[in-house]
């Protein structure tokens, strides 16, 4: 299976690959929260850091952009809606809809923040094995009462496992339809319907097969879990992350 997409784990020896998943989760949560208040300089600095991390983790920026193309369309819609709904000095109007300079600035900032949150998520998924995510979710949820932490861990790891598979199968279905001139259909509703139904069917079949495969090998929630192994770099990384967090929060 071709897993050259930005939603799947890719083996490597980078700093992020070696870090304990719990440390990565905490850092990602801190950065995502502080991004909400970050100004332009802070966003620029963080973009640079993320870019370097992508290169160091063996992730090509172009590959990321290609995989995020549908998300980028969503960001364009967010930008347009912000541009026309934020009050400010008008810089132009079309059919009664006024675009303001404050709207363009606000829209740009929101889109930038969303984009960086997405990149941080991709950096996490690309450098973390789903089994480690499962173990970390279990670890974090163990002290929480009334939460079945093992089940939650399995759900998260299965979701991470199925995300790249879904992208791959969507590509396969799309190619199969293209080979029969499906791309000539102009009605977007019909196109989505033709893509969604076979995709849903194949995903259900794959999930069924996986469940059967797991059952055949005696899957149980009360199984021996392999321990998480910290690399020893977690503390300096966490300190660096807190410094970045302070920088993001106060650097407007």
């Amino acid at each position, binding site marked *: *299976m071709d*897993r050259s997409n930005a939603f799947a*784990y890719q*083996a490597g020896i980078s700093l992020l690959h070696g870090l304990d998943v719990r440390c990565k989760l905490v850092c990602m949560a801190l950065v995502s929260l502080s991004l909400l208040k970050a100004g332009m300089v802070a966003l620029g600095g963080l973009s640079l850091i993320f870019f370097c991390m992508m290169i160091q983790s063996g992730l090509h920026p172009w590959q990321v952009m290609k995989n995020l193309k549908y998300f980028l369309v969503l960001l364009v819609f967010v930008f347009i809606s912000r541009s026309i709904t934020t009050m400010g000095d008008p810089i132009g109007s079309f059919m009664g809809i006024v675009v303001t300079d404050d709207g363009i600035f606000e829209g740009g900032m929101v889109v930038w923040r969303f984009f960086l949150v997405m990149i941080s998520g991709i950096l996490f998924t690309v450098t973390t*094995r*789903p*089994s480690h995510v499962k173990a970390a979710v279990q670890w974090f949820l163990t002290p929480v009462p009334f939460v079945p932490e093992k089940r939650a861990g399995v759900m998260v790891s299965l979701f991470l*496992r199925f995300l790249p598979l879904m992208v791959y199968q969507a590509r396969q279905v799309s190619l199969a339809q293209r080979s029969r001139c499906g791309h000539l259909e102009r009605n977007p509703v019909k196109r989505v319907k033709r893509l969604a139904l076979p995709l849903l069917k194949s995903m259900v079949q*794959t999930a069924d*097969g*996986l469940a*059967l*495969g*797991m*059952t*055949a*090998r*005696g*899957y*149980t929630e*009360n*199984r*021996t*879990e*392999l321990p998480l192994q910290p690399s020893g770099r977690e503390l300096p990384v966490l300190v660096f992350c807190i410094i970045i967090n302070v920088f993001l929060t106060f650097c407007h």
Partner: protein
Amino acid sequence: MVVDNLSHRYGNGTPGLSNISFSVYREDFIIVAGRNGSGKSTLFRHLNGLQSPTGGRIYLHDRPLEKQKHMALTKVGLIFQDADTQIVGETVWEDVIFGPCNLKLSSNDIHDRGVQALTAMNLLHLKNRDPSTLSGGEKRKLAIAGVLAMKPEILVFDEPFSNLDYPGTRDLIASVVSLHRAGHTIILSTHDLEKILFYATRMLLLSRGALVHDDAPLVLLKHLESLGIREPCASRLGMDIPAWDGDAIPSFSLCDQTGPRKMNTFTHKNPIMEKGQDIPLSTSHENTIIPEVHHG
């Protein structure tokens, strides 16, 4: 293992298996053949308790399977037709130890079993590889290694040669034969009898969910075509069945038997049944009435 009058109906009422009875002995190498939809995969899923029968029973070591389902999953290793279905780990190593982890073994035991299984399948050098980057043959061997790590007694292969190239098939045949020599009981379904017939000790022929023949492979060769199974080329030409991969040494020779013999209907004593009551090992009559079965 004793399969006693096993029947299965699908959820919509269509029968999948009809009154199947046979026994599996420790040194058996059994081929299960039949056309698509004849019930091979459904039968296999009953053998390790993945599916429950609607009639009849399966006994493993003289105990009903439904009373030892966890043991059945361990002792009867099922290797699926689609290896990708069975591979659940993100690396070869993680996949192999998935079963031992479920058995709640200690970390040392898990490690030992993982190494043993990968060594047996000659995959130890690939232990850090992503399974999706393996070849079809390697994936199939990984699926076997994953099952071997649970230390099964019976290995059940569902169409193991499908979608494999020539080197992959040769490699897999060698692995299956060596597992049989190592003491595992083998049950294997295939449409390509030529590839594995040489090594088999018994053959079960299924048709529309019913077991119609259970006998030595060479005895059944001339009954294959009528059931929609291709007769091996050598048999058509009146020759002995050679080893498909040539170089491998046979687990036993079938060459002392020439040509099809008269069909046998033999009985055996079932230790589980009441004293003195014999049950037929097979329904291998020439005039067996095959029930109409529709598969969902």
